[in-house]
């Protein structure tokens, strides 16, 4: 499951527009995979690593 899919599992109401405007996911092609570059959502808290790890 990708990082995007994990976040959508936690916050199912998030839209693609949220990911174009207030949430930025990034991958620097350095072997460390996708990560949350910026999280500026006005009401939803940035998911913790524990929350993300709990989703398989």
């Amino acid at each position, binding site marked *: 499951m990708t*990082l*995007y899919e994990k976040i959508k599992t936690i916050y199912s109401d998030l839209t*693609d527009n949220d990911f174009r405007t207030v949430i*930025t*996911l*990034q*991958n620097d*092609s*350095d072997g460390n995979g996708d990560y949350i570059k910026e999280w500026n959502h006005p009401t939803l808290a940035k998911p913790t690593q524990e929350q993300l790890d709990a989703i398989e």
Partner: protein
Amino acid sequence: MGTLKLNTTSGGSLSIQAADGASDNTLTLPAVTGGNIVTTADSGTITQGMIGSNVVGKGPAFHAYPSATTSASHSVWTKVPINTERFDTNSNFDTSTYRFTPTVAGYYSVTGMVSFGENIASVEAGLSVNGSIAYGGTANWSNNVNSMTTALIYFNGSTDYVELYAIQWSGVTKTIQNSASTVRFEAHLVRAA
């Protein structure tokens, strides 16, 4: 010291030969408006007025492309692993970090293009300056394959850098192609600082 004066207002030329056996020859011209006399041994400042037509500078320029494809997850800005150089005149492009860090300060024209090789909902190229996506590329929200981005960017000649990223919104993971003609990254100095 001898003194020569052109006694005409209609132009002409003056040829001065070094004295036989002389090791040091100096020519002094009247400083009417100031300025420099440039010789083949001069390392001083070249002014704009001294540059003739059809003469360009030799600032840094590079052009590179990826040798392999890369997976890009839905809605994730993914750095394009540009690791093959066509040219890199000043060795300012790093093929291990995929980063251009020019060592000459100035204004650079930077262009990046990406291709996913198939029609998907939307794709976009982006230039990341000093770690942040700063210049997005062409994109629409119907099917497209490629995206290009270009910008004129100032670099300080030491720490400023730029990288090429791409993002796609297909709903699933897609592949950034490695075609040298449609996935490329290039920049060149346009104006010195």
